[in-house]
């Protein structure tokens, strides 16, 4: 199943564009800050100057180099998204597999909790905690993850229920494989493509949330973030600075979100067999 899947994916232009955008920004997040020409907290330049050879994107109102700021902001935004998406994925897969495999009472309780969490708007909890406690960003990323797992675990649970009846899983269980052994060695590897959808979708949501929280001013103001850069630049949009100060963070944020969106959409298209059949039959 997986071999065919990767072949299908490699032929989908959306997947390739999404993958290259994601890799580009992951690379920028890793290598950006060492490449930054200036310290983004250095306020010694003359405020609001246009781009020059030394300062590729000019200087902001606080006398900081915008290009260096941008590189640090990309790292923070991407890191927040990946941390939150990955944690949500781990929680979601574990709970989904456990719930589907054990069934019965465990399943009923876990899925009830999932329903309740699903109904609570995550942004509101984040705004409340961020404005009351001003926690470090990684705590907010983890809180967001703890609110995002239910959709993943529902998908994983449904898949587990059908896998539970498949021959190889039944064979493993009849040969005396324990619960955890089966979950670890059979269920979790088998559902690999499903994770990727969940991971891409949740990372997209987390990046969006991070940008919005930063835009609303809920993070430490000295922490560079794309949302915060947009918020500051927007205050001066009536000056002729919008193309070198406002545009770069907007473009980067859009491209990051676009990259993960393309990944999620093309994976969904390839993995969901019903949709794929519908598409293939009509085009053939």
């Amino acid at each position, binding site marked *: 199943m997986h071999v065919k899947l990767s072949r299908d994916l490699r032929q989908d232009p959306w997947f390739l564009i999404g993958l290259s955008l994601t890799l580009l920004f992951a690379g920028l997040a890793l290598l950006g800050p060492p490449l930054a020409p200036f310290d983004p907290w250095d306020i010694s330049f003359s405020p609001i100057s246009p781009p020059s050879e030394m300062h590729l994107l000019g200087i902001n109102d606080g006398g900081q180099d915008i290009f260096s700021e941008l590189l640090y902001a990309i790292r923070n935004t991407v890191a927040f998204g990946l941390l939150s998406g990955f944690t949500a994925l781990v929680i979601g897969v574990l709970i989904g597999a456990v719930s589907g495999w054990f069934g019965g009472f465990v399943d009923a309780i876990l899925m009830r909790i999932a329903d309740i969490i699903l109904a609570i708007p995550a942004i509101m909890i984040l705004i409340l905690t961020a404005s009351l406690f001003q926690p470090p960003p990684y705590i907010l990323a983890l809180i967001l993850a703890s609110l995002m797992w239910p959709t993943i675990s529902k998908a994983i649970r449904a898949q587990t229920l059908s896998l539970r009846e498949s021959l190889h899983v039944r064979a493993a269980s009849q040969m005396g494989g324990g619960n955890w052994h089966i979950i670890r060695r059979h269920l979790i590897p088998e559902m690999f493509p499903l994770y990727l959808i969940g991971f891409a979708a949740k990372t997209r949501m987390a990046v969006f949330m991070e940008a919005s929280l930063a835009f609303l001013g809920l993070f430490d103001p000295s922490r560079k973030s794309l949302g915060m850069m947009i918020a500051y630049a927007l205050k001066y949009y009536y000056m002729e600075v919008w193309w070198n100060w406002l545009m770069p963070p907007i473009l980067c944020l859009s491209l990051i979100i676009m990259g993960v969106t393309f990944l999620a*959409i093309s994976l969904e298209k390839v993995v969901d067999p019903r949709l794929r059949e519908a598409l293939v039959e009509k085009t053939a």
Partner: protein
Amino acid sequence: MATGTNQAAGRFWQVITFSLAALAMIYLSYLLPRLLPGDFVTATYASANVTLTAEQEAGLRAYYTQDKGFGDYLLKLATLDWGYSYAFLTPVSDLFFGALPWTILLLGSANLISMFIGFVTGVEAAWRHGSRTEKGLVGGMTVLEGIPEICTGVILLVVFAYNLQWFPAAGAETAYAEGGFFQRLIDMAHHLALPLTTLVLAYFPGNFLLTRNSMMMVIKAHYIDTARAKGIFPRRIRYAHAARNALQPIVTRFGLRLAFMITGALVVERINSYPGLGTLLFNAIQTRDLPVIQAVVLFSSLIVLCVILGMEGVYRIIDPRIGNAR
């Protein structure tokens, strides 16, 4: 199978789930501020220029710590006694209900418009599957889906409010304007245009892609062939036979996407300085006006819960089969 008791039990669980979610939100809004280190008096006056005498401080503390537990808190919430805003010095409930109608106007119209356009274009695109128009539409929508509201909002603001000056950059009405009812209506629409366009551009691609994908599956069904064989008009097949079944995912996913949408609406209101809950929340965050933040967060979540629960009801009307699926 489709027994009445089953359906009633499903609906009962739904209501229980939402009540528990609401209770969790209310309890968090009660608990979290009480976990803060120090107390309200030190927090407010620590950085102020006034120095309190010991008596004043004791008096203030006595006033602010009349904490009678969760039951009392619930009672205060129910009687709209949500405290006073530190920054505006008005009751929080006045601020909240002053801002709420604008948010409902903006979010409601954005949702209705984007659902309608997304649904119709989605149905038509799926019907013309394989054509160049359809491919172009899907491609364009996929790209649009990737552009967050912050970005479209800022771009529209810079282009249409600043460079072209076609639309106002802030507010919901012209202040102190006098005129008849219709002039006022046009003025409101003029102010609504930019934030509304931003939100529609953000919501509509998702609706389009969902409708198109589910239509693609419905179109293959045998009852569509039957309808065709009977010689029914294509438009009637599309909307009365196929689209009704394709409508489900839009409605089911609505609840899931609402939390996402709320985030976007907060940001878009702030970008266009639209006087709704988002701007109120933003100003409260800037001045660290905790009672306002708390009230906006809590009550907008409760409204969201009610809307999702209401949508579940709509969902059952659209597709009577689901009553026994749960």
